[in-house]
C-alpha cells in the first residue's frame, strides 16, 4: 500500500460537529436555491450564448417548461437570501476543511486511488450497485466519491457563485472581468443553469448512494455524529 501516513479514521461515515452543521445548512440552502432558481427560470425558459438574449431573439436551447412571469419576485428574493447563506456557509466549510486538513486527509484522492486499476474497480463496483467501502477500504472514501465531492466543492460551487455574480449589474461594474471569464451575461446564465443541472445530478447520485449503502448508519453519522448506538464521538 502506498498510502501516505495518516491517522486512521475509524469510520468515514462519522462526522465532526462542524461538518454536520455546514452540511445541513448547505443542504437547506441548496434546496431553496434549486426551487427558487426554477421559479426565476420560468420567466424566460430559454438559454443563450453571448451578452444578449430575449424571447424574440434566437435561443440556443428552448427548455420544455411553461412560461410563468409570476414566480420572479419571491424567486429572486429567496434565491439571493439562500445564496448568501450558501456562500457564507460554504466559505466557513472550505476554510475549516482547508486549514484543519480535512480536505487533504479525507477528500482529496490518495495516490493509490488514482491508478487506472483502482479507478476501474471502483467504477465496476458502483455500476453493480455494490458497496465499494468494504474490507481495507472501509476507512476512507472511495475514489469516485472523493472525485465527486472535490468536483462539487472546488469546481461546481465556485462556478455557480461566479456565473451568478456575472448576472449582477452592480458586481460586474466592479469586476467587468467576469464578463470576459464567461463570455457574456447570457453565457453566464447558461453556464449557471448547466452547472446547477450537474449539482442536481450529484444530489441524485448522493442520495442513491446513501440509500444503497448503509442509510441508517450514514444518516446517524451525518446527524448525531455516531454510527452505532455505543459508538464514541468523532476523534
Amino acid at each position, binding site marked *: 500500500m502506498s498510502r501516505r501516513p495518516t491517522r486512521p479514521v475509524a469510520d468515514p461515515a462519522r462526522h*465532526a*460537529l*462542524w461538518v454536520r*452543521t*455546514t452540511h445541513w445548512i448547505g443542504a437547506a440552502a441548496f434546496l431553496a436555491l434549486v426551487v427558487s432558481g426554477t421559479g*426565476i*427560470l420560468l*420567466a*424566460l425558459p430559454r438559454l443563450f450564448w453571448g*451578452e*444578449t*438574449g*430575449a*424571447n*424574440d*431573439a434566437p435561443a440556443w436551447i428552448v427548455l420544455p417548461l411553461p412560461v410563468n*412571469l409570476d414566480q*420572479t*419576485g*419571491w424567486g*429572486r*428574493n*429567496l434565491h*439571493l*437570501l439562500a*445564496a*448568501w*447563506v450558501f456562500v*457564507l*456557509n460554504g466559505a*466557513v466549510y472550505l*476554510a*475549516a476543511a482547508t*486549514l*484543519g*486538513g480535512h480536505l487533504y486527509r479525507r477528500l482529496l484522492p490518495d495516490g493509490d486511488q488514482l491508478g487506472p486499476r483502482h479507478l476501474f474497480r471502483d467504477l465496476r463496483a458502483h455500476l453493480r450497485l455494490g458497496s465499494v467501502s468494504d474490507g481495507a477500504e472501509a476507512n476512507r472514501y472511495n475514489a469516485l466519491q472523493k472525485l465527486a465531492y472535490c468536483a462539487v466543492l472546488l469546481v461546481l460551487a465556485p462556478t455557480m457563485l461566479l456565473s451568478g455574480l456575472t*448576472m*449582477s*449589474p*452592480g*458586481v*460586474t*461594474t*466592479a*469586476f*467587468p472581468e467576469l*464578463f470576459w471569464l464567461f463570455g457574456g*451575461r*447570457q453565457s453566464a*446564465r447558461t453556464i449557471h443553469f448547466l452547472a446547477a443541472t450537474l449539482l442536481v445530478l450529484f444530489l441524485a447520485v448522493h442520495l442513491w448512494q446513501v440509500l444503497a449503502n448503509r442509510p441508517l448508519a450514514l444518516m446517524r453519522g451525518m446527524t448525531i455524529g455516531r454510527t452505532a448506538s455505543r459508538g464514541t464521538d468523532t*476523534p
Partner: protein
Amino acid sequence: MSNLSRRQLILGSSALGATGLLGGCEALPGGPRFDGLYAASDALTFAVQRFLLRHQRLVREFPPEAISAVFPTINTTDPDDAEYKRLKAGGFAEWRLPVSGLVARPQSFSLADLRAMPARTQVTLHSCEQGWSAIAGWTGVPLAHLLNTVGLQREARFIVIRSVDGWWDSYDLFDALHPQTILAYGMNGADLPVAHGAPLRLRVERQLGYKSLKYLTAIEAVARLDGLGHGRGGMISDLGLPWYAGI
C-alpha cells in the same frame, strides 16, 4: 481539530448574526425601510455592492454595432392616461418636467430645454429581472447636470422620480449623481419611442432594468424616504422586489 472546528462555527454564526442586525435597521440614514423575510439579504447585498462600487466605476459601453436587433418592451408600453395621450398627440411640445423639493431653484423643463443641455450617449447592456438582456444606445442629459442646474440643497439625500399612472421610485445620490445616470430622450440615434418611455426615461445602468423608469413626469429631491408611500422607497418595493437592484 476540534478547537478549530468550534472557532469556525463561531465565526460562521457571528457572520450570520451580523447580517440579521443589519437587516433590522435602515441600511441608509433616512433611506427606505428594508423589511420582511429578505431584509437581511437585501441589506447585505446593498452594503457589499456599495463597498465594491465605492470608486464609482463606469459600466461597460459598447460600440454601436453591438446594439441588439431585439429589445423587448414590457409592462407599460403606451400609457392609458388622458394627460399623456394629449401630450403625445402634440408631439410632447407641451410636456414639462418639474424639478422640486430640496433644490435652490425649482423649475420646469421642456423637452427642448433638456435637449439644449450637455448630452451623453452610451451604448449599454440592459438587464431585466426576468432574465433577458439587450444592448441599446441611449442619449440624454446626465441627471447630475440637471440637479446642478436647480442646485441641490445641503440636506437633499434622495431623488424621487415619478412616472405616469402614479408609479414612482427613488435613488440615493450615489446612483443619482453617477455619470451614466441619464435622462434619456433618444434611443439608438432616434427619438425615444413611446414603447420605451417617450418623451423621457431614466437610465440607471448599475441596477436591473426596473429601476430605469419610463414616461417621467416629475423629479423631487428629499432628505428622507420614510414619509413617502409605505416608506419602502418606491412602488416596486411595495410589490416585493428590492429597492436596491444591483443584483
